[in-house]
């Protein structure tokens, strides 16, 4: 074990002096992601607010056919714009989100008591026009309801007869469980941090050592190769772990600066929560370090290693993407799947649900087993003479 600790100490010292390693492992993830998160929240909230408060400018074609409707819209705060020449083009070129067209047969149908046609011209595939479309449709619906009730009353019918069902919302979600964005985003960020924190080290200690031609002399020392490899992997794990811990701390510092009440979120990371998350995510750091070291040691050159890393970084994204598309309920068997289980567990921890101890155990054990298998593969890979000479 002497060799192992010697290699470990040396790699730590060397990489602490490496600005690139420090930047990649200890600065990039811990700083970038939390700031990105808060920035995104601010942006979303301010955009939402702006849309909600903005008066709606509505170009109307055929306003003369429905003066009472126009009056109603104006009372509700809509600014009616004059009739445009080419309404379709106006919407297509994104100059206005929505145009209202009142058809010439409107007055006739109206007086006959038949549904009078209006057209809402818009492009719902554009995200930013969704709010105005919703707003104008709600206004039209409200106007229709109002007139409908009046007509029924005139004929001596109680308007309630036309609304056989009344819907009431009973909201059982707590502020914490509503922190849905955080539930998706935090595990995603932590998973990626475990990998980005390990990437530079995994490459530098293996492919980098080969590239700098210091691997051959190193292997002539009387130390079993698995110890050399394990020492290197341990360094990578420690850096990945440090990266994770710093990211969590950084989130804790940054969260109070979140826009107040953004999405009904009440997310504070207490010390106990932080430690729980760190415990759950730590095995991922070990898995990432082993997997990345294995790939980097296998690569013939630093460049080849880099191209593998680009692909590997997709792996931690997969579970998060699945959850975004299809949120599912956590079940026992899922705890055996690395990355997937951490995603679920961190979600539960943030939501403040109580999690069965067995689930922690299963998640940690399954991830560690796979990590150790990969580590053992990496360690034996160093026994192949070919490994040393390829690329030289």
């Amino acid at each position, binding site marked *: 074990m*002497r*060799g192992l600790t*010697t*290699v470990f100490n*040396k790699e730590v*010292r*060397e*990489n602490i*002096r*490496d600005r690139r390693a420090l930047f990649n492992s200890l600065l990039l993830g811990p700083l970038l992601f939390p700031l990105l998160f808060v920035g995104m929240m601010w942006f979303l909230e301010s955009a939402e607010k702006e849309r909600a408060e903005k008066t709606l400018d509505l170009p109307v074609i055929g306003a003369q056919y429905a003066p009472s409707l126009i009056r109603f819209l104006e009372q509700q705060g809509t600014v009616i714009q004059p009739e445009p020449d080419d309404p379709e083009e106006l919407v297509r070129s994104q100059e206005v989100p929505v145009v209202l067209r009142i058809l010439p047969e409107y007055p006739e149908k109206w007086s006959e008591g038949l549904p009078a046609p209006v057209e809402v011209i818009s492009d719902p595939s554009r995200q930013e026009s969704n709010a105005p479309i919703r707003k104008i449709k709600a206004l039209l619906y409200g106007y229709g309801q109002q007139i409908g009730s009046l007509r029924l009353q005139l004929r001596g019918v109680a308007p309630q007869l036309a609304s056989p069902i009344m819907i009431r919302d009973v909201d059982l979600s707590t502020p914490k469980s509503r922190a849905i964005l955080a539930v998706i985003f935090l595990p995603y960020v932590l998973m990626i941090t475990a990998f980005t924190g390990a990437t530079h080290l995994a490459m530098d200690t293996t492919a980098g*050592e080969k590239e*700098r*031609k*210091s*691997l*051959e*002399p*190193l*292997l*002539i*020392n*009387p*130390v*079993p190769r698995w110890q050399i490899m394990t020492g290197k992997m341990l360094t990578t794990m420690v850096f990945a772990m440090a990266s994770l811990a710093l990211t969590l701390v950084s989130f804790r510092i940054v969260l109070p600066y979140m826009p107040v009440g953004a999405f009904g979120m009440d997310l504070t990371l207490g010390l106990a929560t932080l430690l729980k998350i760190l415990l759950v995510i730590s095995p991922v750091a070990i898995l990432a370090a082993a997997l990345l070291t294995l790939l980097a040691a296998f690569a013939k050159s630093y460049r080849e290693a880099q191209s593998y890393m680009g692909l590997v970084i997709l792996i931690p994204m997969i579970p998060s993407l699945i959850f975004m598309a299809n949120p599912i309920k956590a079940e026992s068997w899922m705890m055996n799947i690395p990355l997937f289980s951490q995603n679920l567990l961190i979600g539960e921890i943030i939501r403040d649900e109580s999690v069965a101890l067995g689930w922690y155990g299963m998640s940690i054990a399954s991830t560690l087993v796979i990590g150790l298998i990969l580590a053992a593969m990496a360690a034996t890979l160093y026994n192949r*003479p070919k490994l*040393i000479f390829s690329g*030289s």
Partner: protein
Amino acid sequence: MIAVTNLFKSFGQVKAVNGVSFEARDGEITGLLGPNGAGKTTTLRMLYSLLPPDRGEIRIDGLDPTRDAMEIKRTLGVVPDSRGLYSRLTARENIKYYGELHGMSKKAIRERIETLTQTLDMGDFIDRRTEGFSQGQRVKVAIARAMVHKPQTVLMDEPSNGLDVMSTRALRDYIRNLSAEGHSVVLSTHIMQEVAALCDHIVIIAKGEVAADGTAQELLERSGCDSLEDAFVQLIGSEEGLLA
């Protein structure tokens, strides 16, 4: 003391080493001379147990690199073809790392580095990071880290590669001293002057085989030539790859 008998190694179709035998005695400098690609580096790599031979036998002070790899690595000092240093560590830290890998005590390492700094004249740069070192400084550090554990047998692959005249002279003095102290030194080179100036015993390798073996005087007599250069060309059978 190294004894190599009938060594074979091929990579796929390429027969890199094809029946090499020689001896290197303690207190002597043995030179493996041959053109580029003759199989010198492969032979050395088998000696320091980085490559297993396909066939043949190697004994270094009675030990077999294929079976006693760890034991052999303790008695060998190797300056291989690749001499990458850790550029973010100082020269002293580079050497210390190897001392620690050999299991030496802190005190022993410190004393040994003092001695090596004197002998190899590294005082000016021993505590500088090796980033930006000259070739000469690099070779010195590579030698120092290979010698940190006082190995009995020393293997050097093209040690004077890339060195200027002054550094080459200093290196040769150092190698002569090692042999005078009773070490067995084996070096590979494709430079004739080097063997002529240094080696007690010359092994000429070409195309993976030993073309001739003996002292400079013996090689001259055997080839019937006046100069070593002519003798080499005649013994190898071509001038290709030899550098004067």
